[in-house]
């Protein structure tokens, strides 16, 4: 939060726009390109796009458009938190001890049907509202991983294999809570940088509008960056590479977990892809389902955007390792 009196802030931060007449010429350049392409469309390209570029663009647009509604939903929710939830509310509903707060936050994430893209801005605003970091991060991990929609789609993708649904739930919850507890015990507070714009508007409506705009540009920009990265990987890296790891070994588990990171498939659809990977052991496929919603290229970009690069380089490897370990343990017992 800024130290400014709320009533002054909002009018100021729009007003000083006029002062920055010497702003960098990026806007003009971008709009010139957009306008140029708008008027000339494909005539200037003059050729049909190469197959690889078209494939890239198909996947890029698919991921972006698929995530957009969830992102808008998450941003709506996070803007509501900023505008209407007083900071004091959190301390009343959440247990103070991390050992309790972390599992509670994890269960809260499991109940709310969210997508990975919507949970990042929500978790960011929760931290800003004073929720302990570890609890907010546990919520960040469980919300996309084990909500009802995801569990139902897993049950549909693995007909007659209810143990897969149970294993996914248990392993994901275990991994998320472990990460939360490890984080609360060992993490330095300044690893997480609050990069979300602090907004204090003159009214609820104004706070909502400013928060939504700031979060959308931030999370949306990183989402687009992640989608472009994933599309590149999917277009460039041949999938045959994956098959060289097939089998029952530990390497196959790590390979599928790595594939989940690279493919960045939405948590509501990944079960169908996992179901088709019959050349891999059930435990390896479980790792694919547990890792995917918690850490993938798109999410790493979103994490870095919301909490800073220093956060992402520590948090995401921790989550990856914990999720693989949880999958191995749960897979050994249940599958």
């Amino acid at each position: 939060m800024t130290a400014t009196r709320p009533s002054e802030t909002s009018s100021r931060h729009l007003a000083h726009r006029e002062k920055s007449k010497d702003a960098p010429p990026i806007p003009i350049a971008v709009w010139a390109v957009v306008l140029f392409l708008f008027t000339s469309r494909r005539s200037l390209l003059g050729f049909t796009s190469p197959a690889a570029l078209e494939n890239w663009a198909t996947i890029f647009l698919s991921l972006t458009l698929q995530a957009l509604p969830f992102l808008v939903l998450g941003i709506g929710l996070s803007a509501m938190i900023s505008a209407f939830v007083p900071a004091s509310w959190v301390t009343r509903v959440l247990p103070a001890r991390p050992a309790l707060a972390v599992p509670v936050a994890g269960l809260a994430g499991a109940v709310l049907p969210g997508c990975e893209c919507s949970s990042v801005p929500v978790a960011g605003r929760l931290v800003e509202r004073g929720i302990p970091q570890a609890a907010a991060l546990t919520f960040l991990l469980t919300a996309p991983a084990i909500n009802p929609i995801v569990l139902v789609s897993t049950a549909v993708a693995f007909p007659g294999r209810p143990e897969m649904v149970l294993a996914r739930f248990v392993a994901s919850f275990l991994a998320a809570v472990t990460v939360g507890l490890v984080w609360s015990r060992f993490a330095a507070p300044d690893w997480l940088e609050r990069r979300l714009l602090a907004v204090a508007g003159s009214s609820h409506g104004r706070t909502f509008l400013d928060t939504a705009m700031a979060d959308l540009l931030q999370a949306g920009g990183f989402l687009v960056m992640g989608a472009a990265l994933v599309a590149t990987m999917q277009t460039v890296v041949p999938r045959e590479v994956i098959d060289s790891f097939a089998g029952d070994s530990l390497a196959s588990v790590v390979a599928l977990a790595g594939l989940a990171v690279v493919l960045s498939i939405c948590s509501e659809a990944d079960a169908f892809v996992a179901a088709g990977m019959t050349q891999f052991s059930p435990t390896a496929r479980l790792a694919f389902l547990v890792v995917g919603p918690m850490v993938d290229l798109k999410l790493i970009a979103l994490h870095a955007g919301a909490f800073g690069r220093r956060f992402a380089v520590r948090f995401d490897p921790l989550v990856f390792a914990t999720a693989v370990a949880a999958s191995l343990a749960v897979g050994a017992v249940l599958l």
Partner: protein
Amino acid sequence: MRHGDAAAVIGLIGFVALWMGLTDGMLRYLRPSMRPWLVASGAALVALAAGIAFVLWRERRREGEPGIAADGCAHEDHHRLGLVGWLLVMPFLAVWCVDPSALGAYAAERYDALGVPVIDFDLASHVEAHRFSGQPVELKLHEFVISATSDDEAARGILRETPVRLRGFVLPSTDGTDFRLVRFMIGCCAGDAVALQVDVRGYHGPPLEEEAWVEVIGTYDPHAPAGETRDEFAQASVPVLAVDEVRQIDEPDSPYEYPR
């Protein structure tokens, strides 16, 4: 990034979502049930952009009035919008400049390492319900592939004796006669696509172009030697169809198949 630019960028991405959602453009990228969500989010983004623009316009007008001056920039750091927001222009550029079609031959050649998800499908009762006087039974490509590659002997027995009608696009083989029939199945979006493939044998008509959409009528052939598949895993999920008839069709509105 200035607030005016922010409003324009948000409006632009909202416009892309509305454009794709209100036309059939989205069907090339997403499953049809995403349509209302896409349209709603597009509308919300356009409304947000309009809201920001309105606030800006009001403040600018107020600034013009004497007595209310623009203030200093002491808090600018808290309100600076990062450059990363500019990336939201990219989807528009991708739609406008590349206008990519649905996943095609390029992806099919690369994706066959992933198997086909097993989905509950009762072939016997489907054939019972849809077979009229010896007409071929229409099957979705995933229904055919799943039945033909399952361990269910009874299902494969039915397939051996029932002519079927399948739709997909052509992936030509190197020798020019036989071809592979391909269609993608997607769970949510084209990012999670799985390639469904059938080797079509016994076709001797004029060579078909790559990605030409066709309807084929034929019968499952369990004895044909497996085609030029890339690895032992893909082989199991590429059944062979002995073809009687091939007809070119228009690309369907929904280029993909969906598990549910």
